[in-house]
């Protein structure tokens, strides 16, 4: 077995270990350590990606000495590696972008704690991506939740704590459902390893027994993960959590944490239950409907919002809706679209959050639109970046958003039953997005007489560089999307 195949395990353990270490480190080393870890993990995943692309199939990696069906396994394929790599990139960029803000918002003594949480989050995300064992998945889901909650509340104020509590409650409900679901699945199949469960499930379905319990199980699991990834109408916690936590946290939460759960769900659909069976069940129709509802209501409440951060947060609700709509289409094309949108939205949304913070900083820290007038002239980089993000969200060609919109629409056509609702909602939501994002763009480009300071990119090199990187990433996704789409396709095929 090739040495590369250890990388998944290494990356998980490495980040976890880094987390524990940084508990004793002062602020700066912790920071550097964390950055280093992310970079290393990134490179490892990159290498792994190369490897898997080369071999063309996925491999399982036995932890400990017990082989399946007893032991615990890690599984890595093209898609997993790609996801890991991408998550690392986004996380790194978000952290860099929010670094200055972090100093202002979190007292210096707590910084190493912050990085602990980040590291744990990373490890848990990686585990969610790689693991081949449902119960492990559950455990890391919880770790993920806890560290995410920590990321929210690390910035001390009432809002964040309240948000954290709401977040906890919601995700605990979710994980409770997930847990009971997993247990029932275990009860049905007697396995915890995905591949084995799959065989067993196939058997069950073939015999036609236990169809009802199976359905219940699927429902429990999907609902649980849906709640955790803030699918409408379980999004009540989201605006506060994203709107008031420190910017990096917001970016990471919105672009990675919720996506991690979605990815897990997709994984379960493919590797545990088997997508054909899912397609039969009515679950995905429900998800589809909630997705549509999420798209519309998310955008609507975003339009009503008068606070730029919360607006972006609400738009996340809509975007999650897109992803579930794609899943709900119940076709492989739809799934590809969803996975691509996970990536595209992660890139765009973190960009938006970081850009927004740049704008609010030059507007006396206020996030109300009225104060943001002309902000784009005071901080040019942020202005441009925000514009790019908005255009991508609206789905203008050359930006990432267009491609995912394109893929969704394309997928929708292949499902004649859900075609029209999907397409119409897609168009309407485009209009709504245009309304609230472009409103903001015009606002920030409307000159105003203010005495707020101007910031040139020289004053904040790091920030500027991050922004540029974000934009480049976005445009890469928009223009050269083909390889990524192929990659996703390949990965999903190895899933099944």
């Amino acid at each position: 077995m090739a040495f590369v195949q250890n990388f998944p395990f290494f990356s998980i353990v490495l980040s976890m270990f880094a987390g524990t270490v940084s508990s004793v480190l002062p602020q700066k080393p912790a920071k550097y350590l964390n950055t280093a870890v992310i970079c290393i993990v990134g490179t490892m995943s990159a290498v792994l990606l190369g490897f898997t692309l080369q071999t063309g199939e996925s491999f399982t990696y036995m932890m400990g000495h017990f082989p399946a069906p007893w032991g615990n396994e890690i599984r890595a394929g093209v898609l997993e590696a790609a996801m890991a790599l991408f998550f690392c990139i986004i996380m790194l960029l978000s952290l860099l972008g929010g670094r200055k803000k972090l100093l202002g918002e979190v007292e210096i003594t707590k910084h190493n704690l912050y990085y602990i949480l980040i590291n744990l989050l990373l490890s848990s995300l990686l585990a969610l991506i790689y693991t081949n064992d449902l119960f492990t998945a559950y455990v890391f889901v919880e770790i993920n939740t806890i560290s995410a909650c920590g990321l929210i509340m690390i910035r001390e104020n009432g809002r964040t704590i309240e948000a954290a509590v709401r977040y906890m409650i919601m995700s605990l409900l979710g994980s409770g459902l997930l847990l009971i679901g997993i247990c029932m699945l275990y009860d049905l199949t007697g396995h915890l390893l995905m591949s084995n469960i799959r065989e067993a499930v196939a058997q069950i379905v073939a015999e036609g027994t236990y169809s009802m319990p199976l359905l219940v199980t699927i429902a429990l699991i999907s609902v649980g993960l849906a709640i955790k990834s803030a699918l409408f109408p379980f999004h009540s916690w989201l605006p506060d959590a994203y709107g008031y936590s420190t910017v990096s946290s917001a970016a990471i939460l919105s672009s990675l944490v919720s996506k991690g759960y979605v990815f897990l769900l997709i994984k379960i659909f493919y590797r545990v239950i088997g997508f054909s069976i899912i397609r039969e069940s009515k679950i995905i129709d429900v998800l589809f409907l909630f997705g549509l509802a999420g798209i519309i209501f998310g955008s609507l409440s975003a339009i009503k919002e008068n606070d730029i951060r919360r607006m972006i947060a609400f738009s996340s609700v809509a975007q999650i809706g897109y992803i579930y709509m794609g899943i709900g289409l119940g076709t492989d094309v739809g799934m590809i679209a969803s996975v691509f949108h996970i990536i595209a939205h992660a890139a765009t949304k973190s960009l938006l959050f970081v850009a927004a913070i740049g704008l609010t900083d030059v507007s006396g820290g206020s996030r109300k639109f009225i104060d943001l007038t002309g902000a784009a002239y005071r901080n040019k980089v942020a202005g441009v970046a925000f514009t790019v993000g908005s255009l991508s969200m609206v789905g203008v060609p050359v930006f990432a958003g267009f491609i995912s919109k394109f893929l969704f629409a394309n997928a929708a056509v292949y499902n004649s039953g859900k075609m029209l609702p999907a397409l119409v909602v897609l168009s309407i939501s485009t209009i709504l997005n245009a309304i609230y994002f472009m409103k903001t763009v015009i606002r920030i480009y409307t000159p105003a007489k203010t005495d707020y300071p101007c910031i040139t990119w020289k004053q904040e090199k790091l920030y500027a560089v991050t922004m540029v990187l974000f934009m480049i990433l976005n445009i890469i996704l928009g223009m050269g999307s083909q390889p990524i789409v192929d990659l996703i396709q390949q990965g999903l095929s190895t899933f099944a």
Partner: protein
Amino acid sequence: MNPMMMLVVILLPILGGALVPVLPFQKRVYRNLYVEALVLLNSILVFALLWNRPIEALDVVRFTGNWTISLRVDGMSMVFGSLIAFLWPLATLYSFEYMKHEQREKTFFMFYTMTYGVTLGIALAEDMLTMYFFYELLTLVTLPLVLHTLTREAVLAARKYLYYSLGGAAFAFIGLIFTMVYGNTLNFTLGGVMNAAKIGDRTNILLLVYVFAFFGFGVKAAICPFNSWLPQAGVAPTPVTALLHAVAVVKAGAFSIIRLTFYCFGTEFLRGTWAQGVVMIATIFTIVYGCSRAVKETHIKRRLAYSTISNLSYILFGVTIMTPLGLTGALTHMVFHAFMKIGAFFCAGAIMYKTGRHYVHELDGLGRKMPKVFVIFTVSALALMGVPGLAGFISKWNLAQAAVESKHVLSYIGIGALLISALLTATYMLNIVVRAFFPKAGFDYETIADAEDPNWLMLLPLTVFALVIIVFGLHSAPVTAFLQEVAAGIY
């Protein structure tokens, strides 16, 4: 000619325009020279390109899958492209003078020039995706122009313009997707690309999608009920209103609809279906609606904007007849209306620029003070009414012939609508002319002593337009013949 030229003519204005604010010009004059030279050069290139055009297409960017940004010159491109290329330098000339009394000229000329490139992109697009791409881009580059004055109305107008256009594009997008899935190819082919085998029993859905897409693109062509952005966008400086909101942008909408109808869905597929009925009714209604609003409107530019709305629907009406003749009519009106309306708008602009008057009832007696402007205005007014011997008559004639020949009841009604609108046009245009030339008895010319004809920068374009209107009106045979060939797909 080398296919790369197509890319060049698109990129040259975009990049050159982007340079405008960067380059350090000592004097206004230098910048104007630069811009004019740029635009002129590009127009020359465009004509060179169109007259000996490359046969093969040019793939620029590969999006996902085999959907590419690719350019090609066919008949339609020749029509639209040459129209744009002809108008732009003149309009630029005009705007040098006009923009003197506006701020932030650099940004203005930057985007003004960039728009040129993007519009050409629409003209040269080989397939639906490319067109959609440039269509979206057009919205974005023209936004700052609408926003230019940055007054409150400007911002509101810009927002509305944006929402409408992007929203429209969103629905057009559905059409794009369907042509992609149910068509043999995405490339424009006269007669449509729909694949009957793939469609099967989904005809009705496809028709519905056509209607969606029609109205989606129709937003830019200001079809009722999506027209309200156009009059509001009149807050932009006159060169913008004249060139973009009377020609480039709105005609781009019409152009896209032509592409959609004749080159994607195909008339065989559409003719005689309920979809045709729906869109036709929409256009007919818009024709009348636009005019009647224009009669009520007292602000000159808004009045002209409403008249644009109805005239655009002439074009669309020609399209919805869905016969080659109809297309010919549509194209004729597309070309001729461009000249008539831009002429009218530039006159209005000249009046505003010279006298600062914006409302019809303020124009009394100006005819004597600014005779040249008002004579030209009268010419374009008469042309818009469709007085024989001027361009407008010809295009209406072709449209009506197409309508009669199609033997479609709705199209008979359409002719009626054309004539009613002609009458209303007479109402709202001539009442300006009469005011200007025959002020009420006892009107003292002291109140407008300061008014005078503008300088050559403004007059030259105006004169050219007037001449073109008359020449086409008296001798349109070559143009019409060419357009007929285009409609027949010879090019």
